[in-house]
């Protein structure tokens, strides 16, 4: 059963085809990693799938509904959530408030009760905060719940973004380099976290440069090069694919690696 299916996605910026004819699909509980050298179009592909860019061609289906060209907040309402490579946290809000915003779609949000702070608003606030604290505990940030997010260390912000994305209770989670800039211990924690999320039935699409992490947790891997799909398969298939080695290391490097 497929939950997210992207077919023949393409986008051009000026004359540059940043993404060109890429297709992939992912099922609940599965981890699909998208790898490729810098500039291969991984983040661009994420931006298209999450509705931030409009693709010039191709279609995206989310749970059998055509969601091509839907705006990000409408995709979020249909169960798609994501994190960003360059951190996009709400700097001036506390860690807890960041996650509470992640609950936005689960909250009733009418203006008049908010202006007069009816008891139902207060009650809902309490529930949302409790849910947010649970998630912060889940990613190991409970101690800094009331610290402004702007003053948290980098690794904590990465996990905060994951907690915020999870707060929306997504069916599909796109993670853009969640382990970038993290040390070995932090990477280990994130590895563990992603596996847990997938085990709860969320379809995870991962862009990541840390090959150890990718090879370890991915069910399938899609390799991009210069916007085009290069290879797809299990971690083992991809690792042994000479074309993939060539893309990463060049022809000479690939020959060396084959001999090694």
């Amino acid at each position, binding site marked *: 059963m497929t939950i997210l299916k992207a077919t023949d996605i393409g986008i051009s910026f000026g004359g540059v085809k940043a993404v060109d004819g890429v297709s992939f699909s992912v099922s609940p509980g599965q981890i699909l990693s998208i790898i490729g050298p810098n500039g291969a179009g991984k983040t661009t592909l994420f931006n298209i799938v*999450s*509705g*931030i860019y409009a693709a010039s061609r191709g279609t995206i289906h989310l749970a059998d509904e055509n969601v091509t060209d839907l*705006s*990000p*907040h409408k*995709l*979020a*309402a249909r169960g798609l*959530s*994501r994190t*960003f490579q360059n951190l*996009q*946290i*709400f*700097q*001036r*809000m506390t860690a807890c*408030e960041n996650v*509470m*915003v*992640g609950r*936005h*779609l689960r*909250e*009733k*949000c009418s*203006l008049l009760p*908010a*202006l*007069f*702070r009816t008891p139902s*608003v207060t009650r*809902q*606030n*309490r529930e*949302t*905060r409790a849910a947010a604290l649970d998630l912060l505990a889940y990613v190991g940030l409970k101690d800094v719940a009331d610290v402004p997010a702007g003053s948290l260390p980098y690794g904590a912000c990465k996990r905060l973004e994951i907690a*915020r*994305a999870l*707060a*929306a209770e997504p069916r599909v989670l796109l993670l853009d380099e969640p382990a970038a800039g993290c040390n070995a211990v932090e990477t280990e924690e994130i590895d563990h976290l992603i596996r847990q999320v997938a085990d709860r039935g969320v379809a995870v699409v991962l862009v990541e440069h840390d090959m150890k992490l990718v090879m370890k947790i991915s069910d399938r891997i899609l390799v991009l090069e210069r916007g085009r799909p290069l290879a797809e398969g299990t971690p083992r298939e991809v690792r042994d694919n000479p074309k993939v080695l060539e893309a990463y290391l060049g022809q000479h490097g690939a020959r060396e690696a084959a001999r090694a």
Partner: protein
Amino acid sequence: MGALLNQRFLILAMLAVVIAVLPFVFPSSYYFRVASLVWVSALAAIGLNILMGQAGQVSLGHAAFFGIGAYSVAIGPTHLGIPSWAALLIGAALSAVLAYLVGRPILRLKGQYLAIATLGLGVRGALVISTESGWTGGPDGMPVERLTLFGWRVSGSYTWYWVTGALLLVGTWIALNLDETPTGRAFRALHDSEVAAQVVGVDVARFKLQAFVIAAVYGSIAGSALAFMNGFINPDQAGFLHSVELVTIVVLGGLGSVVGSIVGAAVLVTLPQALTVFQEYEHLLLGLIIIVSMIFMRNGIVPSLSGLFHRKART
């Protein structure tokens, strides 16, 4: 959570005490008038601060809504025979509708482009008021009928001190309420990162529009109050300089701080009165004081001072 609730209560209580105690130290009715001006400006600034400080969208034409409120209570009773109190509500509704209609297209703009678009809105508002002299008295302005509530004629600077003070309390209460709600959080979220707000499901366009409408209604009610209080209104109240004054109050007091808007209004309304002793140097000094305080209190008076206080308390 409990702390926040208390903080909200504390701010309201302190404001109520200030409003209640000031009359004991005021030597003349002139002081009541100046204080009422502070309350009215603060009310408009609190609204604008929801748009600018919370949702992070600038408006350089906000006096247009102030003008709509003011002229509604002038024109309604005089030309159309509408009761004054109803004219106030109609003005607020008109402002909300106008903000909604104009906000939809222009809130797609960002930063300085939005500033210019709202500036255009403000200039247009003042222009309409000046040229439609049959209705508005043109550049000379027009008198405003006294407000009558249940047969009680609301007049005199002493009375208006209490009425505007009460309005400010309500306005402060509502603004503080908003902060810790899904709506308030959505405002602050889209301020910090629009794209991140979108991907967690915040309909950014809708919330910008809400902030704009809220700010417009605040401005309109403040405008109506000033018109009633003065018994007279002229197009300057809807003009560009007044828009700039409101933005200055918000930034000087502190973006995003409700108390900041009240303090900013107090400074910007009373300072020119205090500086009149310097006669022709008045504006020079006013400008200088604003520049210096912005250099040394970059985040605005209230956030800067409270930051300083917290640092002191920790060390």
